[in-house]
């Protein structure tokens, strides 16, 4: 038969295609992600993970992972994690990611990561999650303080918004310390790790700022971070679980874009709203999968920034770690984010000209200020990637601190100077008491020049490795500026 399509037949065919196209939504099919929709990660062996998939956290004990060929959930194979003693010289906790080396996966059809787990003793595991890939950690999500017993139980980590996970490599991660075991080592096992479509999860509510409605006065140049962000899900068993979720799952909004400016992601992966006006009010909110998050932050712009006193000591006599008045020595970090013990946010990165607050001086130049929040301890580190710092010619440490909350009796900030790094450190400390910290200038700044002789034990000043600020949560929100040594 000849392949002749008559004009009328052709029209008919086109019409047919059009009709079929409408019904099947061919144009939608055409844009679907083409990555494998594979859910299994470990089912008595690794599934489609490639060969190079295990990456421990930089400060964790690296060799904690093995495949146990005797233990298993309804099988004889599982992933075994040996959490080290807290004083293990090669790392005091266990933490790692499992990142598929076999190409990204499309997880958008699943609603949870599930696995079975048990431990050698009853213990609470710091974090279990997915979306951590050490390549931006864009879709990080986790459950904290997951309780394990000595018998197998199924753990469910709901996906905050699966539609975001169309090409994901961060399949599974954990962080486990010994806070609950008095520093003593233990073992836990996980098995049957997979993304599943349960259908039994209810999104209870997303939240920002821990679900609280916060407000405060703000200054030009500040950036308000959306902190304590996550989602509460109601599980099949009726229990509510909270999933810590990365900003990428959310849409963040401001009610007045002339007060806060566009919301951006900072170096620490947090969404932040920069304050760009000296007056006006804006309310910061968020939605996840079109559900309004509980919690908000009302900013009340009150004008120019209350700068710290500008240092005027001769640069020749100064070794500066963080100040706009001097050339700073290179640092590894202004916040080491020492998971899982450290809660402190702020100070991300190593660039002194790109930190939390950039408040313009009257002459237009920027005053960079670190804003440590959720502060329990933090360090400015000068090791590994940069040289240790020689402050042997200095006689004093100068620091400016502006405490963004009431200072109560008993509150303190302890400064610690540590020489060297790794297993060969020495150092000394000096505690700023609440009485000292209440002695501030009109702008709220506490400025202090501390003789280095006040740091007994700090006897290797030629090899300064870290400067610690420690409050043990007595003070949780501070600005820091002008950290330098001088003679």
């Amino acid at each position: 038969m000849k392949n002749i399509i008559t004009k009328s037949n052709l029209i008919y065919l086109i019409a047919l295609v059009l009709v079929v196209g409408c019904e099947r939504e061919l144009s939608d099919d055409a844009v679907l992600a083409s990555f494998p929709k594979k859910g299994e990660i470990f089912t008595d062996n690794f599934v489609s993970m490639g060969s190079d998939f295990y990456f421990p956290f930089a400060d964790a004990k690296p060799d904690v992972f093995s495949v146990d060929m005797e233990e298993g959930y309804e099988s004889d194979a599982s992933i075994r994690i040996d959490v080290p003693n807290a004083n293990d010289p090669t790392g005091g906790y266990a933490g790692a990611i499992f990142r598929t080396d076999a190409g990204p996966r499309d997880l958008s059809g699943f609603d949870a990561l599930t696995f079975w787990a048990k431990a050698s003793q009853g213990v609470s595991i710091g974090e279990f999650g997915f979306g951590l890939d050490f390549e931006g950690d864009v879709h990080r999500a986790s459950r904290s303080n997951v309780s394990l017993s000595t018998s197998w139980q199924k753990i469910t980590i709901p996906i905050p918004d699966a539609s975001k996970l169309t090409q994901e490599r961060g399949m599974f991660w954990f962080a486990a310390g010994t806070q609950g075991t008095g520093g003593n080592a233990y073992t836990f096992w996980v098995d049957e790790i997979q993304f599943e479509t349960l259908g039994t999860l209810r999104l209870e509510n997303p939240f920002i700022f821990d679900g609280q409605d916060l407000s405060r006065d703000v200054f030009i140049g500040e950036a308000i971070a959306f902190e304590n962000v996550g989602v509460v899900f109601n599980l099949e068993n009726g229990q509510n679980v909270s999933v810590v979720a990365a900003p990428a799952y959310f849409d963040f909004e401001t009610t007045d874009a002339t007060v806060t400016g566009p919301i951006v992601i900072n170096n620490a992966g947090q969404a932040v709203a920069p304050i760009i006006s000296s007056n006006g009010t804006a309310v910061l909110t968020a939605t996840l999968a079109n559900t309004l998050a509980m919690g908000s932050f009302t900013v009340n712009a009150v004008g120019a920034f209350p700068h710290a006193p500008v240092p005027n000591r001769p640069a020749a006599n100064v070794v500066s770690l963080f100040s706009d008045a001097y050339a700073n020595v290179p640092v590894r970090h202004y916040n080491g984010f020492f998971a899982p013990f450290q809660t402190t946010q702020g100070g991300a990165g190593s660039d002194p000209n790109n930190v939390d607050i950039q408040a313009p001086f009257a002459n237009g130049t920027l005053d960079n200020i670190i804003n440590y929040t959720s502060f329990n301890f933090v360090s400015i580190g000068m090791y590994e990637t940069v040289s240790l710092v020689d402050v042997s010619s200095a006689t004093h440490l100068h620091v400016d601190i502006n405490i963004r909350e009431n200072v109560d009796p008993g509150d303190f900030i302890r400064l610690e100077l540590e020489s060297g790094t790794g297993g060969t450190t020495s150092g000394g400390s000096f505690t700023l008491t609440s009485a000292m910290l209440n002695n501030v200038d009109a702008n709220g700044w506490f400025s202090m020049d501390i003789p280095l002789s006040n740091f007994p034990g700090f006897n290797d000043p030629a090899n300064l490795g870290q400067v610690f600020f420690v409050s043990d949560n007595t003070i949780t929100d501070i600005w820091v500026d002008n950290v330098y040594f001088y003679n």
Partner: protein
Amino acid sequence: MMNIKSIYTAVKGLFILSVAALLNSCEVDTTQTVTTFDNLVMSDEFNVDGAPDSNLWTYDLGDGTSNGLPAGWGNNELQYYTDRPENVSVENGYLLITAREESFQGSSYTSARLKTQGLFEQAYGRYEARIKVPYGQGYWPAFWLLGNDCDVNIWPACGEIDVMEFVGDQPTKVFGSAHGPGFSGGESISKDYVLENGRFDTEFHVFGIEWSPDYINYYVDDVLYQQITRETIAEETDGEGEWVFDGPFYIILNVAIGGELPGSPNADTIFPQTMLVDYVRVYQE
């Protein structure tokens, strides 16, 4: 697939065994015959906004004391039932029964309990409703039938057929029960039905019974999950129980809060929440 009713008629002796085997099977056979009564005799589609149709629905009000019960409707429930629009209304094609946390007439919660007592009562038939329930510990929504002679035949002698009960901290499970002399309260004849890939609080499901002189069949959506017969009652009660399901019964829809079965609400329980009823339909053979 065999028709349950025809099996019954054909081989009465084997029927119980067959059904028991069917019900014990872990696999849900979607081809099973769930219902056989198709003659619609009553329906409320809740298509008129406002108060529910007063020709069909009346109310139990208060905390139970005016019905001669101790406060808490005999179960230590915490709600005070009202017929206020805040607690019961028809909107957008649905009956809304809303439980609220509020101080009201000495109670800490309000809710509503609708019934067809004196307005629609019938022996036997297929009773079906499409419902989405609230969730969280303390919620106890139900769709059930009660014998219309409870004032003379004191409960449980008057009989109670619970088409659907749900406790809010078990969001994937419902249960159907029957109460009578020798099998009431915690000793009722009851079975639960669990959704493997869904929840009863996030989507609508159809709950029904088909009740004949010989059996009460319980179903959710297209799944028959329980059958109660005279023989079931005899077996479950060592011959003590009595089939009391031959007289007219009326329909009740309510959302209870707290009490013996669900326990009290906790800090995570969300108020207010609403039970949505898309329709109630009754069929005869």
